[in-house]
């Protein structure tokens, strides 16, 4: 799957982010290939979300470089990221509650006619098409998204990258707020998008989600990458050990492992 000789879709090198004196992300390098899912895991405050916010343009790195298709790029804000086909589904979903589904999907990229007037019908039609694929039961196109259920809101957030043909997708805890059926729907969608050749960063606390979906797993600990492993080469316990102890499996002593298992 991930042919090493091929140019990676995303290559982040030596990324550093500091908040005041705290190093949230410290010299992190990570890459992602087309059609690949990278599971990004780690405890609270490990720096996963901050690293992803750098890629999505919500935060600028203090140093380091980002290469897309091997070309160095500068991503200063969310608009820049979108130009490179980087779309993000935030944990908070980042929906404006007071406007309807189509307005949210097209937020910042509205369809207008020649006079610059919003073409709400065209946006609604496009949104209906995408939503039909994501959640065929979705009917509330005229309602503010505030009145939708959690799963429906999630569908609206996912419709955005699908509508705009994302090449690189960042999903921050996509199933954290969902019920079992909806979680399964999201998992299927991730598999489908992967099939279409989209590269996906999957940030998750749910180790089972990650093992189910990811090709490679990167573990972060206190702002650093502990290690990046192929999913098929490791066990869940080994990855948990990396998350909790902050060391690659090879460096973990049997004593520490015993402690971990209580």
């Amino acid at each position, binding site marked *: 799957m991930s042919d090493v000789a091929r140019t990676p879709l995303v290559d982040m090198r030596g990324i550093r982010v500091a908040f005041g004196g705290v190093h949230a992300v410290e010299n992190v390098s990570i890459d992602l290939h087309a059609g690949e899912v990278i599971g990004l895991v780690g405890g609270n405050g490990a720096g996963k979300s901050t690293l992803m916010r750098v890629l*999505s343009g919500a935060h600028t790195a203090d140093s380091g470089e980002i290469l897309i298709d091997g070309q160095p790029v500068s991503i200063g804000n969310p608009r820049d990221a979108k130009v490179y086909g980087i779309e993000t589904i935030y944990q*908070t*979903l980042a929906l*404006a509650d*007071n406007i309807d589904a189509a307005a949210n999907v097209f937020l*910042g990229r*509205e369809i207008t006619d020649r006079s610059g007037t*919003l073409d709400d*019908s065209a946006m609604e*039609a496009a949104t209906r098409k995408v939503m039909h694929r994501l959640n065929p039961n979705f009917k509330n196109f005229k309602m503010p998204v505030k009145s939708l259920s959690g799963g429906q809101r999630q569908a609206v957030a996912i419709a955005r990258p699908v509508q705009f043909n994302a090449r690189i997708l960042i999903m921050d805890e996509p199933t954290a707020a969902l019920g079992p059926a909806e979680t399964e729907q999201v998992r299927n969608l991730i598999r489908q998008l992967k099939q279409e050749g989209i590269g996906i960063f999957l940030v998750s606390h749910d180790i089972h989600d990650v093992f189910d979906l990811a090709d490679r797993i990167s573990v972060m600990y206190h702002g650093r990458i502990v290690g990046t492993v192929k999913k098929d080469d490791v066990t869940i316990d080994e990855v948990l050990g990396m998350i909790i102890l902050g060391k690659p499996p090879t460096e973990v002593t049997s004593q520490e492992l015993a402690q971990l298992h209580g």
Partner: protein
Amino acid sequence: MTDATSVRQAADEVPPTRSLRSFLASTEIDTRLAGMIGALAVIWVGFNVMSGGLFLTSRNLWNLSVQSSSIAVMATGMVLIIVSRNIDLSVGSLLGFLGYTMAMIQAVWIPTNLGLGYDQPFTWIVTLAIGIGFGALVGALQGFIVAYGGVPSFIVTLGGLLVWRGLIFRYAQGQTIAPMDKTYQLIGGGPAGSLGDVGSWIIGGLACIAITWTVLMSNRRRRAYGFQVRPTWAMAAVIVVSSAAVLGFVWVANNYFWPPALATQYAEAHGITEPPGGLQIPTGIAYPVLIMIGVTLAMTYLATRRRFGRYVYSIGGNPDAAELGGINVRRTIMMTYALMGVLVAISAGIQTARLNAAVTNLGIQNELDVIAAAVIGGTSFAGGIGTIAGAVLGAVVMQSLRSGMVLLGLDSPTQDIVVGVVLVTAVGLDAFLRRRSTR
């Protein structure tokens, strides 16, 4: 009733089809707006009964429309500011300041300093253009400090309230600047500053055609995309009712005649022999009301059909989402204040033209009326919610209360007490209904 599970169940089920609700749903009329029109009707009929038929007269309604226009124009801008989770307390002082500037331009600078004399044909337009440009600039300055300086809008505009009023006193030294340019005066209304009957009917007719065209076009668009469209009867009802309202308003305005003294003057000036009982000259729609209607339409278009408006509402709904969506939040906020400055300049034009002077307390406490109009019109301080049409109706409701109480002979302190109570009650009721309608 407040049981969480039962509420959730109710939300999941199909909403009960009450006849009135389903009727309104199929016409796609905003129920809140319909409720406000209902409340306004109750106020009007109530005052009419209490005043022994003095309220619902052409004369009173015509005056009401003129008196509402200045506050209504500013309220349309205040909606966008409050929707984006800010406030502007400076509009009253800014109105005074801009009114003074515009008065100085036409009464002192152009005629005396430039030596061009009074009542030049270009005076009114130059004055308005400078006033509007200056308003935009001052508004943008306040907006810049709010958006880029990170100072809360309440503080910035509270400062503005003091600064602009202070500047008036400093430069005007308590003087009244008068008179205004003859053409400029017309935008204040009055018998001369009105369209007359023929002009009013033409405007009314055009409005009816525009309403019909808009409804049919929106229907055609939705049909082209295969969306559900309103039933034909509902479309017809919307067209007929709105057109009737427009023509009714024109009829009322045309049934208010020039005051006898003015009519006599006019007759003498034009060599007409007055018929017994005096010359009856229909006044028609006043220019400030026409301005108010134009501003309302333009602002509604801006708020609902342009990117700018969409961004303002999304910022109000979730500023982070707007930012992550790639919207330039700061520039958008600054623009709402620049726009407010433009609208304040227009209102300053209406008020100085109507007074035919600029006085030092021009626009004093207008900020409170403007905010009250927006809020009575359903604008929420939580952000993200509010309509232009609602704010204009809010201004009309406020003015109706004031003018009705004047007819009943209530003094000014009593009026303030009633308006204050109505303001709080209206917002409380709205919050209650909103809680019930969402879960």
